[in-house]
């Protein structure tokens, strides 16, 4: 699924995309793109695209702005509660466009 122009996804700043009825958060960290579900399972609010990205204990993560849990950008698994995860999506960049496989 074609989402947006490459220039729309700035380093370390998430954006949110709507694909069918799914809300997807897309990030660019160290040149690499990542896509996970944007709805924070702890609060039910669609806020993960608005979290701070970084690394914790060697994993690339985003921190939920509501209650601050961390989610692995590649797998969607929550670091604090590994039984909780959000979906993760394959994402790629082709000819200046960002595409997500849903």
């Amino acid at each position, binding site marked *: 699924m074609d989402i947006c122009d490459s220039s729309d996804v700035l380093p370390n700043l998430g954006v949110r995309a*709507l694909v069918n009825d799914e809300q997807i958060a897309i990030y660019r960290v160290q040149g690499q793109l990542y896509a996970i579900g944007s709805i924070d399972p702890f609060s039910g609010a669609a806020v993960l695209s608005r979290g701070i990205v970084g690394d914790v204990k060697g994993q690339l993560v985003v921190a939920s702005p509501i209650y601050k849990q961390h989610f692995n950008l590649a797998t969607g698994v929550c670091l604090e509660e590994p039984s909780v995860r959000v979906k993760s999506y394959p994402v790629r960049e082709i000819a200046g466009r960002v595409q997500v496989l849903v």
Partner: protein
Amino acid sequence: MKKQKIVVVGNGMVGHKFIDTLLASSNADQYQIVTIAEEPRLAYDRVQLSAYFSGSTAEDLMLTSETYYQEKGVSYKLNEKVVELKPEENCVVTASGHKETYDQLVLATGSYPFVPPVPGREQPHCLVYRTIEDLEAITASAKQSKVGVVVGGGLLGLEAANALKNLGLETHVVEFAPRLMAVQLDEGGGQVLRSKIEKLGVKVHTEKNTQEIVAGEKCRYRMIFADGNYLETDMILFSAGIRPRDELARKFGLGVGERGGIVINNYCQTTVPNIYAIGECALWSNRIFGLVAPGYQMARVAVSHITGGTEQFLGADMSTKLKLLGVEVASIGDAQARTPGALSYVYQDGINEIYKRLVLSPDGKKLIGAVLVGDSSAYGNLLQICLNHMEVPESPEQLIVPASDGQAATGLGVDALPETATICSCHDVSKGAICCAVRDGATTIGAIKSSTKAGTGCGGCVALATQVMNSELTKLGVDICTDVCEHFSYTRQELYHLVRVGNIRTFEELIEKHGRGLGCDICKPLVASILASCWNELIMKNELAHLQDTNDYFMANMQKSGTYSIVPRVAGGEITPDKLIALGMVGKKYRLYTKITGGQRIDLFGAQLEDLPAIWQELIDAGFETGHAYGKAVRTVKSCVGSTWCRYGVLDSVGMAIAIEERYKGLRAPHKLKFAVSGCTRECAEAQSKDVGVIATENGWSLYVCGNGGMKPRHADLFATGLDDQTLLKYIDRFLMFYVRTADRLQRTSVWMDNLEGGLKYLKSVIIDDKLGVGAELEKEMQMVIDAYQCEWKSTISDPEKLKRFRTFVNSNKRDNTVVFVEEREQIRPANEEEIVRFVEANELETA
């Protein structure tokens, strides 16, 4: 092998301590434990009982739980009173007829409050203070009362008086003796304590012997005293000492003392060898010990004896340190100098009402007692000198005289203590044990608490335990870990310094030079805040944007549904009718929920991301600026109407509030900052609950600092008086910048000051006397921040690139369908889960 059955009668603090100690012993599995409790709940912290009135619940006070007992195989019966004891049959019988046999019996029945036999004492609203049920009764009675009397001016009586005062009653203390806390204090100490608590509004009546309680004229009751005087009151709390609960022992043939108490030997055995008594019900060497620490000691001795150990109870130190009605009081050893030939040093500070007395042995070499009222900071040090029979310094008065400028406080220091010195008397933890825990890897006070239990009883030794820990850490060459997170091995203060000295302008530069990894949600906003405090560049700048918490990033406050609230600045709380109308129009147009904030502003809730720029365009057109409600920054300056309108106002508080708010608006800091200005000492702006509070007096402005509301409210401290406008601003400039420079992440001004060595006094010396010589520098740095100010929203809406960030979806113009509102009291509110389900179902029906 068959397990030995141990029955513990009473599950108070000491009974529980016995069980807990036995469970922790190496052969715990050889015992079957049963405990029978008269109260409806398991052991709770009776020492902290008064916390119940400041918001703690029965739950918070619990020392154990039913689940814990179940896990450990301890059987328990609640609401069961043992009424029969049959030593010859080795069994006890409860009021409900339940029979329990034992191999060893432990009586931990505690004590009951003594109520003097005054006629009329058995009426309603005549209560005692010991159990949670008592507290519930007191709360209920206080609701129907205006005046309350506590009979008894001892330690517990004053605790009870504090409770009544907190419940809003006019509070009196009636004491039979000529002074308060007659057991622990000498006359001088008692007088200072009396004067201090009378200033807090508690009326003290000493040498009063209540003869009768009769119906009152103005209040419910009248207490008639032996000297012919009387006092009217609506409720009476008896707190005139405790009496041991020894009725079982008395009735069933165990040895009891002449004035009560179950006689025990050094192993805590009663006159029947397989029956033990511990805690306040026990009488050792003709003494009752009414404190928790000796009770815990007895519990340990009894466990030791049952499990084949050799520990003995040989009396206990009755020294105490506590805060009564906010007044620090401590008593050590022979406080009243009863030892023949004892020598004394007395220090009295009549202005601050501080009294300290040292009692020395006749040769003047050993400390045998002490009294401290108003300032008990020397307690830990003095207690150690006393208990360890250490020689006092050459001029012993140094131990109680305040340190003069430039001189370190005299004490012997923790290094002088022997390894065997008891640091925590509640849990009998020695200095050696703490050092050992440090060597085993406990490097924070939290870790020390959980591995040794030190500091988890009354909490009085935490400061000393921390000193012991830090000294041991230093000896081991270990740095105390204060790193902000895994990316930077520095404190916030060190990072601040690196940024300023290195003229660092971006996070990338800082982490490359001084850190590792990519950063995280802890260090990124922290560095963003430091960069803003130093250089005050726009937080929306691309290099800085990814460091910001979502609130700072979108310059609004995220609420739980993922929508935002908006708070425009209303400096000093002054707003024109036109601006009010503009706010109303915006609220109406964008369907926002509106509410007045505590900081005299208006909060607009429920804005969706994509609407923020349009809303702000309208607000800016109407003359508003951003209010920084989203940032760890200067928030508001609350004010009363001041001398301009008010009959009592002395100075123009609104004018000053606006000047202050305009000066410091947007200053980023380690935590949010709230200010207030009151126009007279009636203090309608509540300035004494703020980080910076200003109160007008006839001699100029008074400045208060380091107060806060919130989770742990704290009154601000008086910092300076009689200030003109210019000096006031100068002090605030310096104060704020010094805080921004040196505080830890998310540390409010109050905690920051408490952690500064020297506290308020030191802060005054830095700000007022410019002791560090940094005054001019601090003012310059503040001026730089003030000059660089710009409204973040104004700068943002004029930049189309930045506005792109407010798109909800990068690939669609649809709105976020997870945001659902319903109506309540004519405004919107976020739908709850159930309502969202209903909403989605209705939508599906419609589309079907």
